């Protein structure tokens, strides 16, 4: 798989994406910076894991990529074009190529529609895809089979399925338009452990089979570690660290990534380990700290962290592994570029 080198044009490229919301807070209108200069790249057939705690902006990023939100600034390039500049047929074509799997398999399926209707709903907009009803019926059966459901399930309603089966339905719906990229927003976090494994396996198999790329958003480090080729760690609207999965998780540069890894409970009871317990909570994105976002909770913070945005540093040992930090945990070089 792709190791992050940019020999050919990436499928998706995000540059300096910024998105703010106006919120009413204590009676005044304030600006909430959900995304503050996010840059990402994603290649065909690759899985990019996006990790972060609640409020870090990862869902906003997903919604912006799917054009459910319009960014304030920055650019998105999908296959070389900015979808936000599209309209009409071109826009519809973009809609076809990028799909989403949602976190909540209960809420993301309309309980009043049968499984068949749910899966074929996209074709009611993209009519040219499967023009005849026989084609559509056949394709529904095919998709159900693909995600491990029975063709007869097309008649059933979402509430007649278990949580895992519903998520399979959601995946089938996302596949209905034969997309190039599927944004998976916490696709397994609402599922029980035993079912979660089934769905992760399914996603893995589909990627092998169809070559689809995933943007895999999760707060569960073990899941991301399992599925992602590369990861990006977000904190307060910024990507603070990114790179191939193993070096990023095993030898993190950024103290936040390290704390995150440490805080996650582990099954492994064999040895006692030092647990880093951060103080305080994530500051509000309405009024984020100056300089380094993480400095208020960081044990390595110094005065300079409060004034200037930290530089991008590269991991000496692993190419493509970068972080924004004045005091990286591993030996690292400041960005050359």
């Amino acid at each position, binding site marked *: 798989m792709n190791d992050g080198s940019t020999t050919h044009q990436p499928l998706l490229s995000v540059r300096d994406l910024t998105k703010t919301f106006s919120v009413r807070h*204590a009676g*005044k209108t304030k600006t909430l910076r959900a995304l503050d200069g996010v840059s990402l790249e994603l290649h065909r057939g690759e899985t990019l894991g996006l990790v972060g705690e609640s409020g870090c902006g990862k869902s906003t990023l997903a919604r912006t990529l799917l054009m459910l939100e319009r960014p304030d600034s920055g650019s998105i390039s999908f296959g070389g074009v900015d979808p936000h500049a599209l309209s009409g047929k071109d826009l519809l074509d973009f809609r076809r190529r990028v799909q989403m799997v949602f976190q909540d398999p209960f809420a993301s399926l309309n309980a009043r529609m049968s499984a068949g209707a749910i899966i074929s709903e996209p074709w009611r907009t993209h009519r040219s895809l499967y023009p005849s009803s026989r084609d559509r019926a056949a394709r529904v059966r095919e998709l159900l089979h693909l995600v491990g459901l029975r063709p007869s399930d097309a008649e059933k309603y979402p509430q007649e399925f278990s949580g895992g089966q519903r998520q399979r339905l959601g995946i089938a719906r996302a596949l209905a338009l034969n997309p190039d990229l599927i944004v998976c927003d916490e696709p397994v976090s609402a599922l029980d452990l035993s079912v979660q494994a089934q769905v992760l396996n399914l996603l893995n198999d589909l990627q092998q089979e169809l070559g689809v790329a995933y943007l895999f958003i999760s707060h569960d480090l073990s899941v991301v570690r399992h599925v992602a080729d590369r990861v990006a760690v977000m904190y307060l609207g910024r990507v603070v660290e990114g790179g191939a999965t193993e070096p990023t998780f095993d030898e993190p540069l950024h103290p936040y990534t390290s704390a995150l890894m440490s805080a996650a409970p582990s099954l492994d009871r064999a040895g006692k380990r030092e647990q880093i317990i951060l103080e305080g909570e994530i500051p509000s994105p309405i009024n984020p700290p100056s300089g380094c976002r993480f400095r208020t909770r960081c044990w390595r913070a110094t005065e300079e962290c409060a004034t200037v945005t930290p530089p991008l540093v590269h991991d000496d040992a692993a190419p493509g592994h970068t972080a924004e930090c004045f005091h990286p945990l591993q030996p690292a070089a400041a960005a050359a570029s």
Partner: protein
Amino acid sequence: MLYFLRRRSLTSLLPLLFVLVGVFVLARLTGDPTSLYLPESATAEQRRAFAASHGFDDPVWKQLLHYLQGIPHLDFGTSLRTGQTAASMALRAFPNTLQLAFATMLISVVVAVVLGSWAAYRPNSLADRISSLLSMTAGSVPDFWFAIMGVWIFAVILGVLPTSGTDNGLLSWVLPVVTLCVRPIGVLTQVVRGAMVSALSAPYVRLARSKGATDVRLVTHHALRNAAAPALTVAGDLAVGLINGAVVVETIFGWPGIGKLMIDSILQRDFAVLQACVLLTALSIFVLNILIDLGYALLDARVRETVKA
């Protein structure tokens, strides 16, 4: 607070203006009242003079402009029927309706809170079913029918209450207030019950229960205040609707309130009085809405923050 008042004013006074202009134009469409105010045998010249002296010969927009110009000077015109200023007639009638409405709402709220809480305390119990059926019935009784049946039974047959009027002290209040109470009690009891049922099954009540709080404390201390907001909303709507009821009740009981005055003014094409009444009613609804918003703030700190700002 100031911001809040300004916002409320903008959002509420605009509809008020709409209503006023709408009523003005509609009232003019009912035609020139000259023939009602002059004797059958009045001559054409007398009619023209009458119309001219009251401006009925002007086009409607001109009359409206003239009327609106008078408002800042608190000039709301003069009654054709009585020759008094429209404002004084409306202001004299208004307190009578207000007293009626206040007594009604006070009684309704107290009864509804007690009944509703009691029913919600044990959902599906016999008490709940009975009080639900009663409150639904109460919400479905036409007030005019209730009123005349009340008069018939209590004043005519039994002779224990006066038929009408305001001359018999508190006894005069019984039938009008009871009539007006019926629907609010019915509706409000159901709302309080519903709100209390959900409040009583809310997690914070379970938490309070896990602290060892008694049931009485759970109802009065934890659930009631949370259930108050929806009840307040409905109580506000009911208070506005009381004006509807007042029209009927005041007509039947000869209560000299604003509802009766408005109906009479419409019948008599006494436009100035009608408009003064409309203005006063709309204004009081505006004030009522502000009071309700303050009530929300009183109940809930989250609302208070938006009001305070």
